[in-house]
Structures are given as structure tokens and as C-alpha cells.
């Protein structure tokens, strides 16, 4: 896993939030990156949790289908091909798994509706998958075989997970072709031509940085925590 990226924008764009920031919860001022907020039904409550490394908690309002989308660079992120694009985060589901869902990565949706364009990590009540969606076609892959997940597939309540997508190669639409997923450093699956289903994302399809969390359970307030969000896009 590449742990370090170039420190200069001359080499690539390194976007990250470690959630060590002031306590503003306002739309356009959340976290170190000043995330925009879009409410899904009823607004969630962001808060910051004591920790050496900065943790943001999102707590849903208490009804099914409530949630919050945090986003940056609206409709202005595109991905060309080549190697070296990384999307990663560290997350946990704090109080319940059932009905506690998230999508994290680059997408064009600020609702619970699945994005029509994007590359993201998906949790359906802790059951992990990763997806690429495009006007050219969608591919979804379940995470499997990770020793730190229940049955190799599902997050354990209250446990932190490091989740990473590594993008490489170039497809016929100019976007990334191969997407490998790692959970806690272990290989969790691959979307690729070699695996029979390459990513079809086009180089002109627009997305944005995104953290979407929502509740589709019995209506209890769902609690989700994110330790960091990080994306590196080399300048090619």
C-alpha cells in the first residue's frame, strides 16, 4: 500500500481530511476541507470524537431513510486512465450494523439512490462491496476473503476498518480500467478485464468527492464514524 504521496500539486492532487479541524458544522465549513452538506430527508448530526487522529461522527436523525451527504468539487472531478489513483478511508459502524449504510469515494449522487457515475466503497449494513458506475455500464463487486471481516465480507460492529481502492490501466473510454479493493491491507476483490468485467468509466464523466451515510433500518439513530478520507490523483 503506498503510504506516502508527493507533497506537491505539481505531481498530483492529494485531497484528504483527517477531521482535525474547528468545530464548525455548517454547510461549506465542515472538517478541514470545508465539506458541503446535503441532507437526505432529515439532517444528521455531525460531531467530533476525542482521538489522537481526528474522528468525525455522523448520527442520523432517527427515522428510516434519513441521512447526510458530504461533498466537494461538485460535478468537477474526472478521472483519466493510468496508474496511481487511490481512494481510501478508515471507518467504523458504532452502535448497530442493521440499517447503517454508507458510500464513500467519487460519485455524482447526494441521495441514497445509487450513483449513475462514480467509483466508491459501499456498505449495506456492514456488507462491503465496491462499485464503478458509468453511462457506459456499471460493475459491482462484493468484498470477499478478508480475515478481519465477519465471513470475510461484513464489518464487525465498533471495529475500525481501513478500506482502499487502487485504480490502474486505461479502458477504451479513457478512464481507469482496473479497480482493486483492499480492506485492512488484505485483497478484497478486483474489477478488471482479467476478472471479466473492466471498469467502463469515461474520462469526461463528472463526479465529486463524497461521503454518504444513511439509515434504512427500524428508525433508530444510526452512528457512523470516519477517521480519514483520502484521494490521490496523479497529474498525467
Amino acid at each position, binding site marked *: 500500500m503506498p503510504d506516502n504521496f*508527493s*507533497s*506537491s*500539486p*505539481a*505531481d*498530483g*492532487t*492529494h*485531497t484528504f481530511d483527517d477531521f482535525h479541524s474547528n468545530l464548525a458544522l455548517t454547510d*461549506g465549513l465542515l472538517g478541514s*476541507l*470545508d*465539506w*458541503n452538506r446535503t441532507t437526505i430527508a432529515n439532517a444528521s448530526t455531525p460531531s467530533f470524537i476525542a482521538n489522537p487522529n481526528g474522528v468525525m461522527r455522523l448520527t442520523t436523525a432517527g427515522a428510516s431513510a434519513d441521512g447526510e451527504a458530504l*461533498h*466537494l*468539487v*461538485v*460535478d*468537477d*472531478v*474526472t*478521472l*483519466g486512465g493510468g496508474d496511481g489513483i487511490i481512494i481510501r478511508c478508515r471507518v467504523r459502524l458504532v452502535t448497530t450494523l442493521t440499517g447503517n449504510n454508507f458510500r464513500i469515494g467519487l460519485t455524482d449522487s447526494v441521495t441514497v439512490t445509487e450513483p449513475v457515475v462514480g467509483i466508491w466503497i459501499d456498505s449495506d449494513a456492514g456488507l462491503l462491496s465496491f462499485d464503478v458506475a458509468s453511462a457506459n455500464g456499471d460493475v459491482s463487486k462484493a468484498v470477499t476473503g478478508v480475515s478481519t471481516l465477519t465471513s470475510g465480507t461484513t464489518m464487525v460492529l465498533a471495529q475500525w476498518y481501513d478500506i482502499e481502492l487502487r485504480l490502474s490501466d486505461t479502458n477504451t473510454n479513457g478512464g481507469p480500467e482496473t479497480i482493486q479493493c483492499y480492506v485492512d491491507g488484505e485483497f478484497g476483490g478486483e474489477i478488471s478485464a482479467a476478472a471479466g468485467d473492466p471498469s467502463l468509466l469515461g474520462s*469526461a464523466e*463528472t463526479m465529486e*468527492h463524497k461521503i454518504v451515510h444513511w439509515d434504512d433500518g427500524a428508525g433508530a439513530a444510526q452512528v457512523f464514524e470516519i477517521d480519514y478520507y483520502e484521494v490521490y*490523483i496523479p*497529474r*498525467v
Partner: protein
Amino acid sequence: MTSSFPTSPVDGTHIFDDFQANAAVTDGLVGNLNWEMHTIANASTPSWIAGPNGIMRVTTAATADGDGEAFTLHPDGLVLAGTNQVFRCRVRYPVEIASNNFRIGFSASVTATEPTVGIWINSDGGLLSFDVASTNGDKTKAVTGVPTLTSGTTMVVATWHDLELQMSGTNANGGPSDIKCFVDGYPAGEITGALLGSAETMEFSIVHWQDSGGADAMAFDIDYYEAYLPRN
């Protein structure tokens, strides 16, 4: 070109904006660094252009000759002492180049008037130069001999250019003495014997304006702004 800098403030101050930010265009909230905005005559419109690496577009108001916008940080709080500072940016004129002007770097001016203190890269309708201004005296140098520029001197419309200034040495007033300019990685000229003093104050600045003689919406794109100031 040294691409990467130390990541710790123990070693120096690394300021950069890659313009991968929320969509705010409010004074004090523009870009990742929350740039302040200063209108020159009639306000320009900042916007965000789709791309992998973040681009801010600044378009003049199309109201009158001289319209533009200055983006600044740390007003009157920046001084340069000693040596080995680096400033660089990646810029483009997407549509038209004549009368489309910028100054980017460190300066004490938020207008189209030439700064009285500062170190910056200057574009006069795409014709590039670099300057150092000080109460002790000014120096300017035209960019020459760059194969990616028209006639070695002038930006090409709709083409990205990487611009860089590397400072070295220490002059008798405590500031940097020599300034080398690079364009797209090519040596483009050098100022020696700069007179900037170590107590002369500036700010991080991006200034864009048009002087077409009338109303004109002129666009300018900036991909990143970066400065490294070692702890000397």
C-alpha cells in the same frame, strides 16, 4: 525542478492550493486555502472546471476596461528572509490572450498597479516576465528562450504552462539575492542582485485583470498555486 517538499513545518512553510474544494466563491472561502477576494473595478466570477486535478477559472466582468480580481492570503504578513524559497503555478488562457493579464506570486498590491514590494511572475497579454520590487529598488526580467512559448517569450492560448521561481542567496538587505525563472521546466532567465529587504511585507497573491480598452469577459485558469518557504 524539485517537485516534492518536506511535509513538516519544522522544515518550512508549504502553502499550496490545488483548487479541489467546495464550490464556495465567497470572500474568505475560495479554494482549499480560503482565499480572500478583492475586486478590481467590477468583480470577476470564479468557477470550477471539471478535471482530475482541480482548476479554478476566473472570468472578468465584461463591464469596463480594467476589470479584474485579486485573491490574497495573509495580508501584509509575509516576509522573505534568506534563501531557497520556491514559488510555482500552472496557468492557462483558455480562450483569448491579448490584453489578458496576471501577476502571481508574493506582492503587496491588490490592484492592477504594479506592486511596490514583492516577487512575482507577470503576464502582459501572455508576454511573460518576472519581477522583484522593493523600497530599495526594483528589478524586472523578460522571459526568453523557452521552446514551449511563442517566440520563446509568450504563452500559447489554450495551453497549460508551468511557471516557477527559485530564489537563492541572501542580499545585503536580508532578502533573497538571485531569482531564477523556469517555464515548463526550461530555464527562462535570472535576476541577480535583488534588493528585497527581509522586513518588507507582502502576501500570497493571484491578480488577474484585462486592459482591452473596453468591456470584455476574459478567462484565466489556474491549476495550482504553490509556495515553499524554508525555515532559514
